[in-house]
């Protein structure tokens, strides 16, 4: 039940406590017991400014743009510590990443905003650090976080240099006119090459190499200078305090105790407790039950004024009622124009999710309903597969989103799932001019087709220049078109491609990593669609189509797909008492064929005294195993065969023994 709360942004102390190791737990509890309406003072901030009473010129809103592993969370922790927001002894590594999966993978999925008091030149300031999600699937969320800031810290590992995704977010920040402060992190590492990468950064953002700050999140070196530079360089927010209130939602998180917690940045006017607010895209209205700031635990306040960042609680239970990018206004005195940039989350990748045990279907449905409360991008509808039974077709922002959702379903709801091969959405135009939107290969029309359009992405690959050839070869295989190539330095190159989304959802990133010995990084964003020569390949077992294995592929790759699947299945499906042909077909044309030979002997040779119990127990086990068999026509297919056939592994070992 608590599972959903794990994602809470520190709003429910109970939820947080669960994730904290015991030792830290006591320290955190001690801190909470103190009646601290305002955060404790630090040497750096003696006279904190209260929310709602902070002049905008004393506010600095910034985010940190960094690649996974480049030390963003550690730096953020250090800032919390230096500003006295978190005491040293209460410090837990990477304080801001709360969710289990985030902590394990070292990535941040959901952003948060922490208000830090800071004193510079004898004057008090408020620094709002807005954390940004760090993965390609969440580009839109990143863009909203950036839109809530006036500046960005561009954080780059001094031993590794900038990565594709960081570059993409940097461009996004530059498009949003953010002030960029380049920072090289991990200067304490022996492998650090700060001079080299300072050159690279300077080239990218048009500054001098010596403008790059050098810090170590680990030792704290340079962090105070960075805080000073944030105050000095980043402009204060600008807004009209007397205009109708407008605040942008840059994050929205479901907490099982408090309902949806909405993170906003006030642009104009102000938001106050107990007033009624309206969401400008959905027109929904809510009462503001609570308003506050995160420091780093939630602290109620008297309201939020121009330029301030904080959280709202309205009692709604579904993040869909509080959408990222939407504008919050006062219901009684509404703004006429919403802030720009809102868009509905659009799923890009689809996969069928089926419980291995069919009786778990209601659990899967409830689990998806629960996850949806916290994930506005998650869409799904029930579907039925002849081979896999009852399940859901689920839409995701991308592959990481898919993996995270699947992992949470398995981990938090104890579900064993089969997911079908991920696919994208196709727009099929029939001869008569009508359109069919295909999110599941089995919906692909059988009749005459005029054209099929597939989504494409604009992809950026950053890699050492040694690997240009390998990357070009891979992108070529994946039907990519080279758009441009730039050297970031003599050794590093940025390559820009247009690629069909379908070609990168499967194992493109893995392939890219393996062909570049792990050095390449990838970023992509949707870039419309294109006409493509696509066909549906069906897989037939003894003449019966297995819907779960149908796939929409480019005509040039249909044969390879057919051969691969037929061979995989021959190795995975146990021999039956009759011969089972496996065929791959485009429509009625067979393009590949394998045969599972009939089994000729399964009898146990000896069956005397002690053999009888053993044999009976074996039968009882087979009876149980039968429940994990799916019938395709007369062919018994074990669940494991479906799972293995739908996995990414191209090579399957031969069945052992029989």
């Amino acid at each position, binding site marked *: 039940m608590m599972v959903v709360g794990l994602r809470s942004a520190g709003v429910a102390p109970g939820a947080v406590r669960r994730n904290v190791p015991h030792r830290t737990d006591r320290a955190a509890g001690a801190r909470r017991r103190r009646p601290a309406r305002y955060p404790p003072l630090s040497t750096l901030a003696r006279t904190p400014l209260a929310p709602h009473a902070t002049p905008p010129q004393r506010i600095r809103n910034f985010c940190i743009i960094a690649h996974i592993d480049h030390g963003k969370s550690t730096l953020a922790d250090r800032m919390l510590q230096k500003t006295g927001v978190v005491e040293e002894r209460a410090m837990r590594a990477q304080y801001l990443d709360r969710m289990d999966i985030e902590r394990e993978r070292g990535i941040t999925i959901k952003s948060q905003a922490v208000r830090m008091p800071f004193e510079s030149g004898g004057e008090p300031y408020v620094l709002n650090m807005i954390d940004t999600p760090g993965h390609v699937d969440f580009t839109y969320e990143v863009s909203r976080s950036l839109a809530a800031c006036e500046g960005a810290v561009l954080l780059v590992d001094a031993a590794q240099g900038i990565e594709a995704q960081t570059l993409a977010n940097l461009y996004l920040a530059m498009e949003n006119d953010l002030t960029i402060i380049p920072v090289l992190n991990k200067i304490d590492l022996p492998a650090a090459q700060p001079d080299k990468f300072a050159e690279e950064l300077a080239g990218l953002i048009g500054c001098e190499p010596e403008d790059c700050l050098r810090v170590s999140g680990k030792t704290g070196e340079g962090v105070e200078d960075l805080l000073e530079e944030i105050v000095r360089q980043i402009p204060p927010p600008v807004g009209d305090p007397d205009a109708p209130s407008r605040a942008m939602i840059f994050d929205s998180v479901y907490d099982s105790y408090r309902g949806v917690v909405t993170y906003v940045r006030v642009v104009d006017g102000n938001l106050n407790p107990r007033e009624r607010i309206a969401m400008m895209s959905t027109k929904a209205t809510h009462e503001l039950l609570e308003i506050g700031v995160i420091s780093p635990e939630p602290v109620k306040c008297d309201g939020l004024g121009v330029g301030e960042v904080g959280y709202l609680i309205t009692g709604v239970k579904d993040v869909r009622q509080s959408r990222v990018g939407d504008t919050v206004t006062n219901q009684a005195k509404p703004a006429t124009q919403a802030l720009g940039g809102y868009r509905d989350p659009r799923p890009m990748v689809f996969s069928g999710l089926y419980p291995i045990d069919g009786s778990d279907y209601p659990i899967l449905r409830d689990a998806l309903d629960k996850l949806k409360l916290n994930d506005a991008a998650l869409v799904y509808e029930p579907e039925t597969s002849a081979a896999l039974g009852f399940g859901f077709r689920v839409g995701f922002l991308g592959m990481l989103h898919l993996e995270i959702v699947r992992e949470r379903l398995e981990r938090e709801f104890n579900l064993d799932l089969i997911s079908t091969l991920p696919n994208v959405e196709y727009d099929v135009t029939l001869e008569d001019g009508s359109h069919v939107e295909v999110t599941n290969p089995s919906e692909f029309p059988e009749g005459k087709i005029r054209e099929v359009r597939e989504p494409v992405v604009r992809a950026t690959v950053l890699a050492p220049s040694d690997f240009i050839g390998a990357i070009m070869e891979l992108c070529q295989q994946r039907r990519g078109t080279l758009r441009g190539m730039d050297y970031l330095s003599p050794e590093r190159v940025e390559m820009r491609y247009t690629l069909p989304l379908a070609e990168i959802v499967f194992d493109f990133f893995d392939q890219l990593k393996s062909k570049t010995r792990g050095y390449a990084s990838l970023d992509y964003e949707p870039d419309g669609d294109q006409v493509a020569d696509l066909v549906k390949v069906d897989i037939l077992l003894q003449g019966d189509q297995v819907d779960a294995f149908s796939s929409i592929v480019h005509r040039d790759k249909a044969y390879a797909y057919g051969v691969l699947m037929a061979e995989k299945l021959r190795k995975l499906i146990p021999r039956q008492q009759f011969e089972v042909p496996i065929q791959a077909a485009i429509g009625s044309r067979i393009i590949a064929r394998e045969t599972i*030979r009939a089994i000729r*002997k*399964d*009898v146990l040779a000896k*069956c005397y*005294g*002690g053999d009888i*119990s*053993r044999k009976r127990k074996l039968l009882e086990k087979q009876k149980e195993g039968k429940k994990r068999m799916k019938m395709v026509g007369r062919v018994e297919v074990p669940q494991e065969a479906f799972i293995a056939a739908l996995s990414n592994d191209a090579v399957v070992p031969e069945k052992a023994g029989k």
Partner: protein
Amino acid sequence: MPRLPDGDPAPADGALDAQALAGLAGVPFGMYLHVPFCATRCGYCDFNTYTPRELLAPTRATPGATDPRAGLPSLVASYTDAARAEIDLAARVLGADAPVVDTIFVGGGTPTLLPTAELTGLVGAVRDTFGLRPDAEVTTEANPDSVDEASLAALAEGGITRVSLGMQSAVPHVLGVLDRTHDPANVARAVRGARAAGLAVSLDLIYGTPGESLQDWRASLEAVLALEPDHVSAYALVVEEGTALAARVRRGAVPAPSDDDEADKYELADELLGAAGYDWYEVSNFTRTSRGRCRHNEGYWAGGNWWGIGPGAHGHVGGVRWWNVKHPARYASMLAAGDSPAAGREALTPEQRHDERVLLGVRLADGLPLSDLDARGRAAVAGLVADGLLDPGAALGGRPAREGGEAQRRAVLTLRGRLLADTVVRALLGF
């Protein structure tokens, strides 16, 4: 060695409840005697058997002794004392319900590693304690190397009526892979000696040994037929976990037996044995006349009752199955303490008894009466006939239903069905 099954704990006194004892009435009763000793262990064998060397602490073995039988007499003495104690225990447990014994089967291990007098002494103990029917079948397994004309005569004298010789193959390189050391010529001598002593003779064969060609297998079958035994058992080689052979297969030193190859060899066996007048009466057992069948084994397949004497032996009475501890020392010490040597037991549920009845009955040439099947099982019969797994005449023929023809219908495996008996059993059990 196969692990003992998981079951419930067995009571220290070995007692059986009244319901199980009630199952003794009117059903043949057998005694199985397990002799857990071999001079050497064969690489394919996972039976509960030990060499004297394995059982005796190194200090007690004669230093430098190369005789694999060194130390055997003390082991035999301890074993026969314990076995006699278990025969007494069986009599106590069965009490007034104790039936007269119909069949005895002495298996192993290598029973003929025991001095003949000790072996026949155990048979005598059963006869003295329970009584033995005049026409009782008393079989002992024998290694062709460890019997001669005199010992076979002594066995017959001591009450043995039948010997089952572990011939396995007539081809030296096949015997070599199986670690069988006997000289193929000894088999013929043993058969002649047994015949001369008036004993019925069964020969055991193994097919599918790595490296055995179809021609090798034909040679073994022809050698068997030349000896004109009363009974032939032919077993597909199973590579059992934990055996030396399994390790060799895993290492890739020898190929794993293939089901397809074994199917070919079974079909050849059925053809050659059939042509010589040996018909199957159980999947792996062939005989020329119904009198040649092994009645003791038929008891297993018919759900009969038997007591298993010896380490690791299994018993069954009236729906209760149990099994003894495996190690001879532990077996002996439990009996010396006056306790039952049973390690565990299980009381079969009606569903389990049904499953066993089907899985055992279907292996027999006499077949399984369709009236023994539940509705799902009966519904599967037509499909199995259509697939060529069940004999159409036996399953669908007979007199019309109104003349009671239904009652005579039986599930009898075809040749293809015998090889796919597992498939048939699953279908007849409705899954």
